[in-house]
C-alpha cells in the first residue's frame, strides 16, 4: 500500500487547488453578473448615454369654426464645434458624389464660404465665431452659427455635409392670421413667455408636459442607431377654442380702422355679441396688435381695451333707466311729462339737454328718441337710488366680466351711499359711472334675451391632447328684468331708430333694428370734463327676434362727426353679421310709439 499513497495525495491536492480557483472565479462572476450588475450597467450607460428633452408642442388657439389663430412652428439653430472645425488643420473629407465612394478634401475656409453663401454671413464672420470660441476655451465644442433659421436654409446647410455643423430645433409661436383677434389672443415675448391675452390666461391649458429620452453615442459624437430609449412620452398642450369668428373679426377690425381714420379719432371699438348665448363673436379695436410683430404696434393698443378700458357710456344707459321704470311699473312708453331743456332739481345740481328747446311734452319713448337728459331724469327720479343701483348691478355694471382674459375691468359704479347729489342724477343718463364696451353690450344683450343677461364669454372650450373637452365657466345667467319689460324696451329702442335723425344711417332694408345713441363726456384727469366726446351706438337686430347686439364707440374725433362714424360702424358691422350668420329678414313691422311731440 505504500506504493499509491503519494499518487493519491498529489491528485487530491491538485483537485483541491482547481476547486478553490474555480470557486473564487464563480464567486466573482456571481458578484459581477448578479449582485452589482444593475449598478455597473447604469454606470456604463451613463458614460455613453446622453439624455435629451423631448419638447412638448404648445397647443393651438382656434376660432369658433376651428380656424387656427395661433400655432407652434419649429425653428432651427445651427451650431458648430470650434474644436472639431480646426482639427486636422481644418481639413475634413466629404463624399464627392451620391453614388460613389470617392471623397474630396475640404478645408475649413472653403466650408466657411459655403456656409456663408447659404446663411448670408461672410466667411470671415464665421471664422471669427470659431476663433473667438477657441480663444475663450481651447476645447470649446459649441458655438452658435445662426439661430432661428427656417427649413429651407436648414436643408441647404445639411446638404453641405460638414461634420462639425449640427442643428437643434426649438419651437416658436406663429399667428397666421396676423392682427385678426390679436387683442384677444395675446402674444409672447422673449423666450416665448406669454405676455398678454388668452396666451396668458389659458397658459395652463396650452402648455404640455415635456418628455425625456436618451440615446447613446460614440466617442466622436455620432449617435448609435437604435439606441434611443424613450423614458417618458411628451404630452402636447391642449387646444383653446374662442367664440370669435375669424372672418367677422377681420371685417369689424377693417370697419373700425376705417371709421377711426375717417374722423381722426383717438380710438374706436366695435363689439358683436350673440344674444342667446352671450358669446362674443367679434370684438374689434382700432390699431390692434399683430402678435407676429408686437413692436410695430402702438404700445397703448396692445391690450384688449374692450375689456380693460372702461369709459363713461353716456346716453346708451338711458335704456337701463327706462327698463327699470317699466319693470317697476312706475312708467310706460306713453307716460307723458312736460320737459324743459335744463333742470335744477336740487340746489347745485343742474344739467341740460344737448339741444335747446322750450318746455315740450315728452313721453318716456320721447325721452329716448330725443335723448333728453332732463326727460329721463324727471322720469328716473320716480325710482329710489337704491332701486336704480340694483338695476345697474343686475345689468352687469360695476361687476367684472369673466369672458376669459387675464384682466377684465369692472368699471366704476359707486354704491348709492357714496353718490353725491349730482352723481345721483348723472347715473340716469350714463355719466358718473363707467363701463367697458363689453359691459354695455352685455346690458343690451339682457334686454334682447327676454330680460335674462348671459355673462359674455370669449373663450369657449379647452380640449386636452387626449380629447377631454372642458367648457369654460363665465358666470351664471341673471334675470335683470321681466320678459314683458324686455319686449317693451325693445319696442322703445325700435322707436328710437325709426323716429330720430339716425334712421338713414342705420337702416338695413328688410331688417328691423332697435338701438340707442350715446354722446358721453369723459374726465380730463384733473377734476373736470374734456370738451370732446365719446360717441357710441348700441343696436339690437332683428327686433322681433333678436339675434345679435352690436356696440360701437368712437372717441374724441378731430375731423368729422363721431356719432356718424359710430352709426356707420354699427350699420356696416350689422351687414357683415347678417352675411356671416345668414340672418333672415325681419317679419312684421314697427308699431309707432308716441314720442309726445
Amino acid at each position, binding site marked *: 500500500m505504500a506504493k499509491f499513497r503519494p499518487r493519491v495525495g498529489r491528485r487530491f491536492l491538485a483537485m483541491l487547488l482547481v476547486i478553490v480557483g474555480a470557486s473564487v472565479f464563480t464567486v466573482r462572476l456571481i458578484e459581477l453578473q448578479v449582485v452589482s450588475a444593475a449598478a455597473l450597467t447604469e454606470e456604463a450607460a451613463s458614460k455613453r448615454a446622453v439624455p435629451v428633452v423631448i419638447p412638448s408642442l404648445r397647443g393651438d388657439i382656434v376660432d369658433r369654426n376651428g380656424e387656427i389663430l395661433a400655432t407652434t412652428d419649429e425653428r432651427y439653430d445651427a451650431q458648430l464645434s470650434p474644436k472639431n472645425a480646426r482639427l486636422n488643420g481644418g481639413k475634413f473629407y466629404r463624399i464627392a458624389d451620391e453614388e460613389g465612394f470617392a471623397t474630396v478634401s475640404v478645408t475649413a475656409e472653403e466650408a466657411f464660404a459655403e456656409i456663408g453663401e447659404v446663411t448670408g454671413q461672410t466667411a470671415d464672420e464665421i471664422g471669427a465665431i470659431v476663433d473667438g470660441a477657441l480663444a475663450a476655451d481651447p476645447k470649446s465644442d459649441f458655438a452658435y452659427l445662426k439661430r432661428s433659421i427656417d427649413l429651407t436654409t436648414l436643408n441647404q446647410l445639411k446638404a453641405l455635409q460638414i461634420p462639425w455643423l449640427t442643428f437643434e430645433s426649438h419651437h416658436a409661436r406663429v399667428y397666421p*392670421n396676423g392682427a385678426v383677434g390679436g387683442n384677444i389672443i395675446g402674444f409672447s415675448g422673449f423666450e416665448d413667455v406669454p405676455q398678454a391675452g388668452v396666451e396668458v390666461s389659458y397658459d395652463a391649458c396650452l402648455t404640455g408636459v415635456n418628455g425625456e429620452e436618451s440615446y447613446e453615442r460614440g466617442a466622436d459624437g455620432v449617435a448609435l442607431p*437604435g439606441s434611443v430609449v424613450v423614458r417618458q412620452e411628451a404630452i402636447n398642450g391642449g387646444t383653446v377654442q374662442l367664440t370669435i369668428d375669424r372672418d367677422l373679426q377681420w371685417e369689424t377690425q377693417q370697419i373700425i380702422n376705417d371709421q377711426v381714420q375717417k374722423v381722426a379719432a383717438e380710438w374706436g371699438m366695435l363689439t358683436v355679441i350673440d344674444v342667446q348665448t352671450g358669446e362674443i363673436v367679434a370684438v374689434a379695436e382700432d390699431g390692434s396688435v399683430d402678435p407676429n410683430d408686437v413692436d410695430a404696434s402702438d404700445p397703448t393698443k396692445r391690450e384688449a381695451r374692450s375689456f380693460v378700458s372702461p369709459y363713461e357710456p353716456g346716453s346708451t344707459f338711458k335704456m337701463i333707466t327706462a327698463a327699470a321704470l317699466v319693470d317697476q311699473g312706475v312708467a310706460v312708453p306713453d307716460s307723458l311729462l312736460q320737459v324743459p331743456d335744463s333742470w335744477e332739481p336740487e340746489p347745485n345740481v343742474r344739467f341740460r339737454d344737448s339741444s335747446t328747446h322750450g318746455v315740450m311734452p315728452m313721453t318716456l319713448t320721447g325721452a329716448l328718441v330725443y335723448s333728453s337728459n332732463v326727460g329721463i331724469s324727471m322720469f328716473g327720479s320716480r325710482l329710489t337710488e337704491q332701486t336704480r343701483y340694483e338695476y345697474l348691478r343686475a345689468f352687469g355694471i360695476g361687476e367684472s366680466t369673466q369672458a376669459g382674459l387675464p384682466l377684465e375691468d369692472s368699471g366704476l359704479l359707486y354704491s348709492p351711499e357714496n353718490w353725491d347729489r349730482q352723481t345721483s342724477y348723472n347715473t340716469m343718463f350714463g355719466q358718473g359711472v363707467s363701463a367697458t364696451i363689453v359691459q354695455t353690450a352685455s346690458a343690451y344683450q339682457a334686454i334682447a334675451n327676454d330680460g335674462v343677461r348671459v355673462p359674455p364669454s370669449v373663450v369657449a372650450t379647452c380640449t386636452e391632447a387626449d380629447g377631454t373637452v372642458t367648457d369654460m365657466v363665465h358666470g351664471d345667467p341673471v334675470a335683470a328684468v321681466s320678459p314683458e319689460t324686455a319686449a317693451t324696451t325693445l319696442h322703445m329702442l325700435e322707436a328710437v331708430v325709426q323716429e330720430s335723425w339716425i334712421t338713414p344711417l342705420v337702416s338695413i332694408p328688410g331688417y328691423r333694428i332697435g338701438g340707442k345713441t350715446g354722446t358721453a363726456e369723459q374726465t380730463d384727469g384733473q377734476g373736470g370734463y374734456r370738451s370732446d366726446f365719446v360717441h357710441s351706438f348700441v343696436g339690437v337686430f332683428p327686433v322681433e327676434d333678436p339675434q345679435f347686439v352690436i356696440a360701437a364707440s368712437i372717441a374724441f374725433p378731430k375731423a368729422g362727426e363721431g356719432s356718424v362714424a359710430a352709426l356707420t360702424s354699427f350699420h356696416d358691422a350689422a351687414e357683415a353679421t347678417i352675411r356671416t350668420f345668414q340672418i333672415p329678414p325681419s317679419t312684421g313691422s314697427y308699431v309707432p310709439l308716441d314720442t309726445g311731440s
Partner: protein
Amino acid sequence: MSGNTVPIELDLDLLRSATPDVSSDPQLEPSRRHLRPAETLAPRARLYRLSPLWGALTAVGIVLGIFATQLGLSIAVSQGAYEARALELEQRDLQRVERVLSQNVNKLASPQNLADNAAALGMVQNSNPATIRLSDNVVLGDLTQRTTQVQANVVPNATLENLPVVDADGLLVSRNFGQAAAAVEALSGAPVVWEGNLPSPDTR
C-alpha cells in the same frame, strides 16, 4: 495468491494457471507462464478507438460556427438599426415639410391675404344683404353695390410680408404698393381742426 485483491495489477499467477484447476493446484510451477495471444476485439468496439483528432476538430468547428452565426446576426441587426434610423429621419423630414406647407396654407388663407389679392384684382365689396323669398320670387334688399371704390385691407399681418399678390393682369406685384398709396391719400384728405383763436379783423 494475494494478487486477487488488486484489480489493476496483472495476476501472473492467474495467467499461469490456464488449466481448469487453477486455485486447487498450488503445486504448479510459477515459472511456466503461458502467454497466449489476446483475442481480437469485437468489431463494434472499434468505435472506441476512433482518433481523438476528429472529436476535437468537430468541437472547434461547432464553436466557430456558433461564433460565425452570432456575428452574422449582429451585423444583420445593426444593419437593420441603421435602416430604421434612416427611415425615422426621413419621416421627420417629411413631417417638417408638411408642417411648413400647412402653415403656408394657413397664412395664405388669412382674410388679409384674400383682401389684398381681391383689391389687387380690382374687386369691390358688395355688402348689401339680399334674400329671395321663394314663395313669390321677390328679391328683398338691394342688389346694387353702393360704391365702386376698392377698399384696401387695413388689418396688418406680418406673416405675409414679402409675399406678392396677383393683379388683374395675372402678374405678381408687391403687396404694399396699393396700401401705401391709400395711406398717403387718407392722411392728406382728413381736415384738421383749427386750434386757437379764429383770426378776426380789427373793427372800430
